[in-house]
C-alpha cells in the first residue's frame, strides 16, 4: 500500500491542532459540504501583518494537516501575501509549482489525486476569507 500521501509528516501535521484564538481580529468558518469538512479559523492582524492564527478542523487528514501548515507558517506574513497563498497552493497542486510554504512540501504527493486537492485548499480558502478578501 502506497503511503506517499499519508507519510508521517502529514500525520504529524494533522495531529497538531492549534485550537481557537481567544481574541482574534477576524474569524472564518468554511465548509466543504460534499465531504463534511469544516474549518473554523481565527486570525490576529497588526500593521498589515498576520500576527497569530488558530484553527479547529473537522475533516480528513489532508485537510487537518494543511490547516496546521496554514496556522504555523502564515504567521508573520503580510496580509496580501497570506491571502494570495490559496492561489499558490492551487498552482502547486495543479500546475506543479513549488510549495509556497516549506511545510507544504509534504503535500506535493497529493498532486495526482485531483479529488483531494480541495481538502488541501480549504484551510487556505478559510484564511483568505478571514482576511476579508472573500473567496477567490
Amino acid at each position: 500500500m502506497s503511503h506517499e500521501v499519508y507519510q508521517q509528516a502529514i500525520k504529524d501535521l494533522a495531529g497538531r491542532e492549534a485550537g481557537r484564538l481567544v481574541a482574534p481580529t477576524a474569524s472564518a468558518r468554511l465548509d466543504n459540504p460534499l465531504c463534511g469538512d469544516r474549518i473554523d479559523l481565527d486570525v490576529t492582524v497588526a500593521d498589515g501583518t498576520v500576527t497569530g492564527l488558530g484553527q479547529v478542523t473537522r475533516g480528513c487528514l489532508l485537510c487537518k494537516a494543511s490547516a496546521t501548515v496554514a496556522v504555523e507558517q502564515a504567521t508573520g506574513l503580510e496580509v496580501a501575501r497570506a491571502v494570495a497563498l490559496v492561489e499558490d497552493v492551487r498552482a502547486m497542486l495543479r500546475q506543479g509549482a513549488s510549495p509556497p510554504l516549506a511545510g507544504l512540501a509534504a503535500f506535493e504527493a497529493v498532486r495526482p489525486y485531483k479529488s483531494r486537492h480541495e481538502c488541501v485548499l480549504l484551510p487556505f480558502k478559510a484564511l483568505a476569507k478571514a482576511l476579508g478578501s472573500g473567496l477567490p
Partner: protein
Amino acid sequence: MTIKTIRSAFPVLARAHFHYLDNAAMAQVPGQVINAVAAHDVAARANVHRGLHDLARRADAAYEAARESVAGFLSARPDEVVFTGGCTQALNLVAGGLAESLGPRDMVVVSVAEHHSNLLPWLMLAKRRGFQLASIPVTWDGRLDLSDLSMIDARCKVVAVTHVSNVTGAVSDIPRLAEAAHAVGAKLVVDGAQRTPHGPVDPRALGADFYAFAGHKTYGPTGVGVLWGRAEHLAHLPPAAWGGGMVAGLDGETVDFLDPPRRFEAGTPPVAQAVGLAAALDWMRGLDWDKVRLHEAGLTRQLLAGLAGLDGIELVGPNGLEDRLPVVSFTVKGCHPHDVAHLLGEHGVAVRGGAHCSQPLMKALGLHEGCLRVSMAPYNDDSDIHALLRGLAEAVRVLR
C-alpha cells in the same frame, strides 16, 4: 453458471489485483453490452420514428425491441416504458408531471433515506408550487420507520420513496407503502436505482405507480434510464420536457401531444444506449437469480462478519441479511472516510466514501463526515471481500 462465468463476461475485471466494490455508484458492463452499442452504431444508426430508409427502419426496430426488453425485465407493457437520460431525469419527469396538479393544499411524502435525486425534484417543485413536503423518518439502522404513517393523509397526493437505500442496502416495504398511499388516493413513485442491479422486478405487483431506474447501475451504458408508469397513469401525466418527436399536432398555441410513451420522449432519445441497456437486461435475465442472490447474500455475510472482527468499525444500516441488498456502509473510528477510501483505492480496492448524495440521511444518523460504502454485484467474489478487509486493516494502521 458459476461466478467465474459471470466474471468472464466483464472485460474490466480481467485486470489483476483489482477489486471493484463501488457498484452502487456505477456497475461495470459486460462485453456484450459494449458490442451491442458498437454494432448498433455501425449497422442501425439513424434517428427513430417515421424514418423511411433501411437504417431508420433498423433503428426503429432496435429501439422498440429495447423497449420490449425493458418491459420484460419489469413484467410490464412496452408502452409503459419511457426511455430517459438517466434515473435522475426519470424522477424529474414524473415529479414535474405530477406537480402540475399540486398546490398549497397538497402534500408529497418522501423519506429521510432518499437519494438527492428523489428528494430535490420534490423539494424544488414544492417551493415553486407551494405544496407541502413531509419525510418518513428512519430508524437507528437506517430503515424507513413505518410505525407511524399518519402523515400519509388526505392531503397527500404522492408518496415518493426509494426501493433500496443506496447507503444501507435496506429494502423498503413497498407493498405496505403502496397500501398506505392508495388508501388515501395518493400515487406511489418508487426510485428503483439500487434495486434493478439485483435482478428483474415487477413494480406493478409491488404496488408502485411509477418506477425509475438507471442504465449505468444495471450493467448498461451511461446516458440512459427508464421511467415506468402504469398505463392508466401515464395517460394522464403531462410531459415535463418538450421538443421534437412528442407532438402529433401543433397549431398556434394548441399542442396535441402523442400518446405515451412517446409523449415523454422529447427530442432524439438515447437510441444506442437503450439498445445497450436492453443487452444488459438480457444478460441479467440469463442469470439464475436465486443463485445470484444467495451468492450476494453470502458475500454480505462474509463482509459483515469481517467488519465485526475489526476494531472501531461502526455499521451504518442493518446488521443482518434480511430485507437488505449487498450494499454495506460503515465508519472507521478516528479515520475520515475519504482517507480510508483513498488508501483502499491505492490498494486496488474501489469503494466510495462520503455523503453518497444522501445528506438528510447522513444528518439523521449523525454522520457529519459521511461513511464508507461497499457495494457488490454478481461478479464480486471472496477475493474482493478479503482484499477489502485486508486493505481496511492496513489503512487503519497507516492512518492512526
